[in-house]
Every structure is written in structure tokens, then in C-alpha cells.
């Protein structure tokens, strides 16, 4: 049985984010749709932690061009540019089917 890593809350730092929407586009591409548009007047992008599977999925971090604009909520760890351990083979899409017995 495969084990999913425990979810860790992440957020967009709007002081750093340039609202380029790459995170929105890439999250939509893999059908997670965890990046959502805030209904407020500025249409800011936010991360819906009900859908986001970080650190299981890190794909949005790979295409974000604004340093430190996505961070872990509790630790404050900056995820852009992505640390090397964030783009290992098991975090990439398409997901490989789990092997029998795993």
C-alpha cells in the first residue's frame, strides 16, 4: 500500500507574487484545481488546501517565476525556486502506477 506524505499547508505570498497565473495553469493541467481565484476585487490567486496535496505534489513550484512567492505556512520555508528535494521523480506527472505490493 502506498503511503501519502502528510499534507503541509502552503500559501501564496502576495507581496512577492506577480499574479502571472502559471501556478493556476499548471494545477489545472493535472486536474487538481487547487489554485483558485479569490472572489475579491483584485482576483488574487489562493491555494485551496482542501485540494492541494503538497508535499505529495510540487508541480506549481516548478513553473513559478517569482522567488519566495509560495511558502509553507508554519515553517515559512520558501519554495520558489524549488529546493532539489521538491522535484524528485516520484513527485512528477504523470504519476507512475504503484507497483504491486507497494
Amino acid at each position, binding site marked *: 500500500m502506498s503511503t501519502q506524505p502528510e499534507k503541509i499547508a502552503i500559501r501564496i505570498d502576495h507581496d512577492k507574487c506577480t499574479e*502571472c497565473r502559471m501556478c493556476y495553469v499548471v494545477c489545472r493541467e493535472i486536474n487538481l484545481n487547487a489554485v483558485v481565484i479569490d472572489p475579491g476585487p483584485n482576483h488574487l490567486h489562493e491555494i485551496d488546501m482542501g485540494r492541494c496535496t503538497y508535499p505529495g505534489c510540487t508541480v506549481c513550484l516548478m513553473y513559478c517565476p517569482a522567488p519566495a512567492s509560495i511558502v509553507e505556512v508554519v515553517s515559512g520555508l520558501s519554495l520558489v525556486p524549488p529546493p532539489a528535494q521538491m522535484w524528485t521523480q516520484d513527485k512528477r506527472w504523470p504519476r507512475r502506477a504503484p507497483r504491486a505490493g507497494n
Partner: protein
Amino acid sequence: MELHPILQEFLDTWVYPTGFSGPGYDFRMHITQRCIPAWNGMTISAVKAAQEDAKTPTREWLWSSVLAGYAGEGPQMSIKQMSTQLLSVSLEDQERYIDLQRMRAQQVWDEVKHGMLHADVLLRGGYVKREEDLMDNADANTLGILSYFGCTAMFPHIHPLARAAQHYFFEGSACLGIQVRMRCMNDSLDLHDNLSQYHEELMHFMEGKYQMDVYALTEKDQRAIEDTLDFLLKPWAPTLADALARAKQGAAA
């Protein structure tokens, strides 16, 4: 080949990280290998130019470089070049490339804004009193570069993904050039001209990276990108005069 440290850092930080496996990423790594020698040479040249500019007591270099930026990213060129890219996606292809269309629509504004930033530098530097003063200046309105901001950008690409080569190679070059200026220069106006665009240039590079990782999955799709890169890497491609001379030589032969 020994890579310049600025290029090595760019590769490790922004190029190699990926969210996808498969033929798109493999293809992008192949394209990256083709880009690296050009990126490295460009970085080394940019460092030399920046060091020369830093030693120059006047800001004459700023006038010419910002004027060229204004010509390439003014409203006319920006709207024309990006609208041709938007039109490369047919109605039948819209379902697949809807996000690319939105990104390119946004890039119209990004490029127009860059033109505005160049004008801001010229105004702050006292080169012109009003932006309107640039309208009669040929250098502010023409650019003899074939690719990206030049003539080829004015014609629709035959494939929606052809633009990925320009996004990847040219925007990558722009990111490296900006990094060089930011690290080698200590001039407030030059810093403003470069820093104010850096994140957007990097975003457009990411767009090229994303297009290859996600969409360039078949030989046909990859061919469109590779053909464009073949052109961009031709040593005569950057200048219109050289290209026309080559074309005349070819016709005469």
C-alpha cells in the same frame, strides 16, 4: 565547456527543475543542450559589455540600449508580434491551447508595459522631456532584429508551439542578460530598466519551459519547436541586414 557561473546558477535554479516526466521533458533537455553554448557565449559577452559600460563616465550606452528596448517593446511591435502568436491557435485547437492563448494575451500587456518602462527610464534620465519626443526618432521605432521582436515575430507561426522556442531560448537569454546587468552595474537607471522587467521575462521563459514539458509530446509538435530553434541559432539570424545579404547570396548562387 566551462559554463559561466551566472548561467550555471540559472540552469540549476530555473531550467532543470520540472514537474513532469516523459517525452516533453526529455525533448526540453535536448533543446537545453542546444541552447547552452549560445547562452554561455551571450553571458560572457554581456559581462564584458557591462564592464565596459561601467567604466564609461557618460550614460551614452544607456540611451542606445534603452532606445532599442523601446523600439522592440513599444505598443506597435508588442501588439503586432503577440497578436500573430495568438492567431496561430485555430478554433479547433483552442480546447488544447486555451491556457497558452491566455498567457499570450497577457504577454501583449507585459511587452507594452516594458515599452512604458523604457520610456520611464528615458524620461527619468532626461533624455527626452515627453514620450512623444520619441515618435520622430527612427531608432525608437525600428529594430533590425529578425527574431523575437523583429520581422519574423510579425508573421503567424505555422504551429501553436513554435513560439515555445522563442520563449525558451530568447527569454532565457533575456533573463541571463538582466542578471548580468544587475550584478555588474551600479547604475540606478540601468538597474531600474532591468529589475523592473526581470520577473516577467522569467515568467515568459517559464511559459516556454511549460509548453515543452506539457505539450511537446509528439515528433510533430517537437519538430515545430526544433525548426524554430534551428532558425534562432543561425549566426546571421539576429540582424536583418545579414539575413538579407545571405538571401541575396543564395538567390545569386
